[in-house]
């Protein structure tokens, strides 16, 4: 693995320097697309950034030292794991990576959900705990098809290296697997029709009900980074046209990610929120069905 390239990936693209503005931009696109679908004007593009600054400037109720460290540490851990995950994304053709980086990426993408579960239980609010329980169940529901789909791509590519997974799989395996991954995105991003974790009309903000000020700002930022990482991964897998020219690869990844954001926002605008059992039924049948089909095909075509 080339250390220099890894550092560029972590700190420049698709890491820190790209991810932070992209997180706010994607949050804005999602809000704007939803607003336009609803016949509203929607916020200006800088609104998510201003929200972050405003929340960071708020003073909150002082907490005992352990609680303060815990409640601030959880969103920081969630955001950090996402930044590392972003650094691993197979954007460039000759990126290299290392054997098994796909396993690390999948594990890092699960960290925010785990942190959210802990955040809700740590808040001791009944609504936070209910949200955490839902998050725990739903993260299992979405992770199984997600992991199975990545595994199918890995089997087809004969490698656990992300660059190979993005470039090598057979088309017959790639498309059902990628579709399964894209299907998992609304649940992982907690948007409609799978926005149960933060169903305002049922359990307020779910795990984050008791969070305010800078801690809430960090959670919002982590959520934005989740958008960048998950849509970025899907874009890398959907667009295997690695040209070897960095500028084109970057442009393709960004365009693919933003296109997915719009698609997800439009889907969210046109649906009601489903319940845990209904979400489970959908993912066990469609998500897992597609992922399993891809896996079987990958084994047959091996």
């Amino acid at each position, binding site marked *: 693995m080339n250390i220099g390239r890894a550092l560029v990936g972590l700190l420049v693209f698709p890491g820190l320097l790209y991810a932070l503005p992209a997180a706010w931009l994607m949050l804005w696109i999602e809000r704007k697309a939803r607003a336009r679908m609803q*016949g509203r004007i929607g916020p200006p593009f800088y609104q998510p950034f201003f929200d972050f600054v405003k929340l960071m400037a708020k003073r909150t109720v002082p907490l005992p030292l352990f609680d303060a460290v815990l409640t601030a540490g959880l969103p920081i851990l969630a955001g950090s794991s996402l930044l590392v995950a972003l650094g691993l994304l197979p954007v460039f053709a000759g990126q290299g990576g290392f054997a098994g980086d796909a396993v690390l990426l999948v594990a890092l993408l699960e960290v925010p959900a785990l942190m959210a579960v802990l955040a809700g239980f740590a808040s001791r609010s009944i609504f936070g705990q209910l949200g955490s329980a839902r998050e725990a169940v739903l993260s299992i529901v979405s992770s199984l098809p997600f992991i199975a789909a990545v595994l199918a791509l890995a089997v087809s590519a004969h490698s656990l290296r992300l660059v190979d997974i993005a470039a090598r799989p057979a088309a017959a395996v790639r498309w059902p697997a990628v579709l399964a991954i894209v299907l998992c995105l609304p649940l992982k991003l907690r948007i*409609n*029709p799978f926005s149960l974790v933060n169903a305002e*009309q*049922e359990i307020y903000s779910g795990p984050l009900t008791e969070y305010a000020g800078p801690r809430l700002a960090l959670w919002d930022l982590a959520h934005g980074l989740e958008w960048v990482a998950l849509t970025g991964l899907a874009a890398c897998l959907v667009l295997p046209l690695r040209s070897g020219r960095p500028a084109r690869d970057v442009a393709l990844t960004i365009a693919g990610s933003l296109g997915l954001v719009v698609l997800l926002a439009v889907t969210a*605008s046109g*649906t009601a*929120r489903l*319940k845990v059992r209904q979400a489970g039924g959908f993912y066990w049948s469609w998500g897992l069905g597609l992922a399993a089909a891809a896996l079987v095909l990958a084994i047959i075509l091996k």
Partner: protein
Amino acid sequence: MSYTVPLGPYHPALEEPCRIDLDCEGETVRGAEIRLKFNFRGVEWLAERKNFIQAVALIERVCGICSNVHAMTFCRALETLAGVDVPERARHIRLVVAELERVTSHLLWTGLAAEIMGFQTLFMACFALRERAMDVLEGLSGNRVNYGMNRVGGVTRDIADPGAIRSEVLRLREETLKKIAPVFLDDRTVRARCAGIGVLSGDLARAWGAVGPTARASGVPQDIRKAAPYEAYGRLDFHVPLETAGDVNARVVVRLLELIETYGLLEQALGTMPGGPLAGPEFVEIPAGEATARSEAPRGECFYYVAAGGAEAPLRVKIRTPSFVNMPLVAAMVRGANLADVPLINASIDPCYSCTCR
């Protein structure tokens, strides 16, 4: 693990003062206790300390959504006491305002139901349409909420151009059929959220005295406009939509069909508006006695009892609102339900805490 989840007294699903304590096991509701009357306003007590003209204006403030039906029913009770006849044109105008109010109320409810399901696009569509219905009411009365159209013996304002209102009503009907009804009836996510939850059997609805769309969705054909026609309802042709499933989906269907019937009623009333005066004499003397009146409010039967002693203020005013009757049913409907369904089941009776806590 069992625990109690408080729904309210301030809850984003319905931003009015009501608290439902839910005993849950996991996400399954085992029991519910409903607590109301956080905002008691003493309207009845106040009405007994005002003269009859002031009392009409006060009674209109009982509810912010179905304000007209309260003032109209109160006036009808006073008219019965005084033996006053309401001119035919005034009867038609009262019907038009009452039915336009039903349109705004049902569109408000459909919007809220969509919002509770997390379907904000549908919520915005319902509220955009409701704004237009409120524009019509504003054009008629000058007001968007408390219309001030009723007085003892008639109405305060005329409808100068019924044809213009009629064409706007036709446009509203078209939009409802095109944009709102198909989503509620055909969208799979909406049906998944509404079907089979909050079931209220016809027997239970009868036993607990359910009223309005809540009763009609459980197969109880109860509508005061048909059972005891008042104003111009007896002369117009309409039918009462009825469903038998008794779940939230049935309540959605009943309200949507009722909206279509309401547009039909408005079309007929505006097309056959008779001429003549708007009201009788300006000051009506209310003799000693007792009277009752009931009207079909958007949420169900609205009942008024008025006692007068021959003085200028009523001796007693008693109001029974539809939400007061329907609210206890929520405790039965949510038993065994999923916690996620409770806000929607509660909203499905279209509760009005403002009326109930008058």
